[in-house]
């Protein structure tokens, strides 16, 4: 399967497309440049991500080493907390996107707006529309999807991947965080 066509076949929505995260250093570089990154984690992470470990480890490393706030949409919070991840806030994804597109919004901590958003565990088509909302409403914001499905509306996305290689990529990104403190 081609790695960089939308996971859902009919989702061809525009003239620009997300760059594929070819190697972990890409995310490392994004993290290095970012001043105010943020995780948005949807409920599907429970089925696809948490049990498999590497995504959880990445989020944990991100939140402890880089102090990236983790925002849980819906009941995801319960499961994240059970995995030992500190949840900064619970908020529905539509409400989060609505705030992120507002240049005046000062963030969950009142310290200013965000510049890099990681998304994981949101239903594909729901995430598709959220990303489109951000791309059009907050063009300066960089978005990265962490699921193993290609999302054209993100700035950066993994290609369509099998679980094994995807987990390896996440592990490598986590290592960059843990070892090189990107």
């Amino acid at each position, binding site marked *: 399967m081609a790695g960089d066509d939308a996971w*859902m076949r009919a989702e061809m929505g525009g003239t620009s497309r997300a760059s594929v995260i070819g190697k972990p250093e890409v995310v490392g570089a994004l993290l290095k440049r970012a001043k105010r990154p943020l995780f948005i984690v949807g409920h599907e992470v429970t089925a696809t991500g948490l049990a498999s470990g590497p995504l959880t480890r990445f989020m944990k490393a991100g939140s402890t080493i880089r102090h990236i706030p983790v925002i849980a949409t819906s009941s995801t919070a319960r499961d994240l907390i059970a995995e030992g991840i500190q949840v900064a806030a619970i908020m529905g994804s539509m409400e989060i996107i609505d705030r992120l597109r507002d240049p005046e919004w000062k963030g969950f901590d009142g310290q200013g707006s965000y510049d890099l958003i990681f998304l994981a565990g949101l239903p594909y088509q729901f995430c598709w529309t959220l990303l489109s909302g951000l791309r059009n409403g907050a063009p300066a914001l960089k978005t990265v999807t962490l699921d193993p499905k290609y999302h054209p509306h993100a700035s950066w996305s993994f290609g369509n991947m099998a679980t094994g290689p995807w987990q390896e990529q996440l592990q490598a990104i986590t290592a960059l965080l843990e070892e090189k403190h990107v």
Partner: protein
Amino acid sequence: MTVNRKNVSITLGEAKTAAGTLRDLKVSIGSVRENQWNEEQGPTPFPAHTDLRTWDRMLLSRYKPLYLPFCDLCCLCTYGKCDLSGGKKGACGIRMEAQQSRIVLLAACIGAATHVSHARHLITHLIDTYGRRKPINIGDASIDTEAPIIRLVCGIKPETLGDLKIVLDYCERQITELLAAAHTGQEGDAIDFESKVFHAGTMDHVGLEVADIAQISSFSFPKADPDASLVELGLGTVDSTKPVILVVGHNVPPAIGIIDYAREQNLSGSIEITGICCTAIDLTRYDPTARIIGPISWQLRYIRSGLPDLIVVDEQCVRADLLDEAQKIHAPLIATSSMNCSGLPDRTGDDPEEIIADLVSGKTPGVLILDPEKVGEVVVRTAMAVMEQRRGFRTIPTPEELFELAKRCSGCQECMRVCPAGMPLAIAMQQAGNGDPAALASLYDTCIGCGKCEDACTKEIPVHSVILAASDETMQSERFNIRAGRGAIQDIEIREVGGPIVLGEIPGIIAFVGCANYENGVAEVAEMAREFARRRYIVVTSGCSAMAIGMHRNEDGQTPYEEFHGRFDAGGIVNVGSCVSNAHIAGATIKIASIFAKRKLRGNYEEIADYVYNRVGAVGIAWGAMSQKAAAIAAGFWRLGIPVIVGPHGSKYRRMLLGRRDKPEDWLVYDSRTGEKVEVGPVPEHLFIAAETPEEAMTLAAKLCMRPNDTSRGRSMKLTNYIDLYKRLYNQMPDDINLFVRSPADIPVTMKEQILPILEQKGYHEHPIPNPTLLKSQIRTVKE
């Protein structure tokens, strides 16, 4: 003398002429007579979109659209395609935001046009059958306000079927104008498009009301009956020893033609009439022995089961490939509506004998018949004649075939890449190929029966049918029930619950409407409905959502319709009927303003909407909503100030209407007693929002039931439900309680210990409960 604005209608108490004195002269041009309704005419009878634009903009300044373009391109004219992403304008000058709202307008116009044309078909047929003077009667003595939406919007009190024609003329004019505004080079402002969307929604609600009050008045449907009979639901209820007829769609006259013909010929007990979608709901309002198979997503599975001997389609929500599917099981198909001719020859004028002969011999796979009575005869006689010869044709594989088909699977995942329910099809198929179909069978409840997987399969596996084969037993044993659609809410019910609702002591009205498609849609809608009924909200429902609620049993084996009563009162689950019966849900909120609060209804939209918005804690949940009709229905609710929550796929409606609870300045109202502007907090916080999970939807719904007018007792009850649901689903306290507490009396007594520390930490300021309004016109003068 009263002059009706759009249809000249003059009543003179006394007039002196050369010929003498005339008393009580009535002149009517157009078809609505001035009648006994002596309520003073309000400011906006038969409003144009611009007449309510100020109200719309008030709402839209609080609930700003969040656009989620489903496509960056515009392809509507030959200037294009235009790429509107990244702030680019189209060749016509339009920007992305306006373009998105334009698409929303198109969807809402399609939806409104569909309901209004459905109403037109019904009215034309009913007037032909019963005459234009047939009185409107939807609840005998239990209902005085027979048409709250029409009274409110149009400023008239319709008394006969003939009166409804003028209402439809108005709707058709308005929808045409709204549609015209979407033409290239017309409207270019996103907020004005949104206001037009609201207007399309209002037209939709008027059309719904016309359709349902006309059919209730003409057919022997339940008339506002809280104890309407329980009717059978589910594929397992079908008696296949009889010829089985399937009706699909929304416009019930052809299906009623079938029942009437069977009755006339004493064949009622000899045929089985079954239905899918709203025609089924309306059919059981006419004849409780008819059976509902299920919602829209049951079309393929039921037909492929081979049970139906003959298929009748009318309009709306009918799959475009039913003729193909029907042919595969050798069942003739009868199309009955100009909305959906299915490419079939029009045999309306032909002798029934000839039509039946052609259908039975297979000379033609189907016919178009536009006369409901003729449909009745042809359908009953053909079904009886073809039953024997076609039985045995089904397209669901046998267990052996299942195994052989599943073995072909290469695991390419192409099916998964089109499946809207996002199901793990490849692995399930491969397990079935290895002899274990359990995983495949478990997908049955989640599958929405779209069939896309089959076209995508690289190994030509009929994936959907293979799922059905694995779950054949489950499918065949579906036996549930549903309370037949009762129609309107009685005036007395409104009088009794009006106070508790407006004061907040009944925590809210939750309406489950629209389709119940989408992954777990059926189970999730049923569970949410039970949760709110248990919490003593008033749960109202209609259409496929009403069916979904019925397709569920509790631990004691009861369906929700057996478990909960059908009165419009706390703890009820109230099925009003089909999609067009949604009018009664909006109508009930309007009647609270008019019957309970004695506000004037006539042509008085803004004041009533302001009342409903600030006082009536109602929320709609359209969990599996997918159609343009659902968009139009929702728009009608938005304009009345009633929030609507959709499921995750509802994000594809491409724009939300969201409030910002972190901006206190957005939440000011006038206190109508003093004219002062006061802060009331974010109630209700949003007007339209997609939720990711049922948990999110339920906590949102509980929260969105709060209104500025809640008494402290009412607010504390609403908060109790919100916090309790939130804690149960999220395992922690919500972090926004401080925004909803206006005084210590609002704090639920049993939760004081948990809430006080949060209030201390977050701070809150006490403010009095105003007599809330957004309208300056509602501020009383000091003297009053």
